[in-house]
């Protein structure tokens, strides 16, 4: 039968393991923002080859399952002489994968701006740099915030996959615990609970941001 004490007991160590989950997802989104912004710039640039490169980047990373990407990176990094801790490889993979989605979020927001917004700025003689800095980006960033939070939620869930390369985040920790306690139901439900709490908090943050920017 379901044992509540076992469930509660497994919450504590799993909660502790959540810092790795958070580290991977927050690190992933940060790296994803940097690379994703560059990719978005490439996709909007006048250069045809840059646009092509950006499109392939996005299509590849969105077409390949994260688990497969993770194993490709994990096994191929040592081959090319890069010897990094599993944790770094994990953040790297998650971040690169997120960059594809984030660049699409940016692009969507920028394309969603009415053309007249930039035109009005051009008409009074603003420089292209000012048009971007003062008119397009502030609006695109506010518009994208909820989508970025959503991406972070996806990364929190996706980070469970890095358990396969041996990082002791929530999922891996729960596997270890299930193996020692022989109570997989309680342990895995406890893990699910922790993910749920993290994501509900993030979703709440997202709604708050959306509400705030809607005014």
């Amino acid at each position, binding site marked *: 039968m379901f044992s509540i004490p076992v469930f509660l007991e497994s919450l504590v160590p799993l909660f502790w393991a959540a810092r790795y989950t958070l580290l991977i997802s927050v690190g992933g989104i940060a790296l994803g923002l940097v690379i994703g912004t560059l990719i978005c710039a490439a996709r909007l640039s006048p250069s045809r080859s840059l646009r092509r490169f950006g499109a392939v980047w996005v299509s590849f990373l969105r077409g390949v399952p994260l688990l497969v990407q993770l194993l490709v990176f994990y096994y191929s990094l040592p081959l090319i002489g890069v010897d990094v801790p599993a944790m770094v490889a994990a953040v790297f993979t998650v971040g690169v994968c997120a960059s594809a989605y984030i660049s699409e979020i940016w692009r969507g927001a920028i394309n969603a701006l009415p053309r007249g917004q930039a035109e009005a700025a051009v*008409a009074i003689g603003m420089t292209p740099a000012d048009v971007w800095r003062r008119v397009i980006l502030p*609006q695109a960033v506010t518009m994208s915030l909820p989508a970025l939070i959503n991406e972070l939620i996806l990364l929190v869930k996706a980070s469970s996959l890095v358990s396969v390369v041996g990082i002791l985040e929530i999922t891996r920790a729960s596997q270890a615990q299930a193996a020692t306690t022989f109570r997989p139901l309680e342990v895995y439900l406890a893990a699910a609970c922790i993910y749920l709490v993290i994501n509900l908090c993030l979703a709440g943050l997202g709604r708050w941001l959306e509400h705030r920017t809607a005014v």
Partner: protein
Amino acid sequence: MQASAVEIQKVNKYYGPFHALKDVDLSVPAGKVTCLIGPSGSGKSTLLRCMNFLEEYDSGEIRIDGRLIGYDAPGRKMGGRALREMRRSIGMVFQQFNLWPHMSARENVAEGLLRVRGLPKAEASARAADALAKVGLADKMDNHPSRLSGGQQQRVAIARAIAMEPRLMLFDEPTSALDPELVGEVLTVMKTLASEGMTMVVVTHEMGFAAHVADRVAFMERGELVAADTPDRILHQPQDPRIQSFLRTYHERNSF
């Protein structure tokens, strides 16, 4: 012959195979109001947008105060800096207002003074306040566009343009996106500007405004400039059958 603020000669514009402007000639007298009328799709907005080179024309010349806009010489595009320099003195008001939603009314107006004219913040802000007062919105300065009615938004947009102290103002169907009861307040502001001697080019469907405020009315159809003359001769004694038919349709639609 009085001085022209805008001199348009043999301007052509294509969208792919579509010939949007056909050998258009027009001269806009300084200090006067010129209205561009005609059926939708006739090219009047395109022509207006060519006057500040938001739309590129393919051949011909458009001179603002004698200076060619968009090209250094025929076939050689103007550099960004020179073009911005020219646009600074041309104000534009759009059909959809195009106010920046993340800035208050006052910030919208001050933005150009700050970034383009390089005024210090306090002065830009003070001038923005003056411009807003002029369009009757002194009490709405700190509202964001979403908190303003369409008519108020358009007046902010006019303030944004006049704050730059332009020598020429372009209006692209400034009242077409407004509810009928809000049209009046915008037209009133425009009339005031006209009475102060601002050179204005107005694309409009408001025949009343054209009849009473314009000094010249130009009629366009299918990319051609059919006639440009006094309001009286275009609107009351039109010679060209195309103008007659346009006005007939207009009167039928607006009578009840």
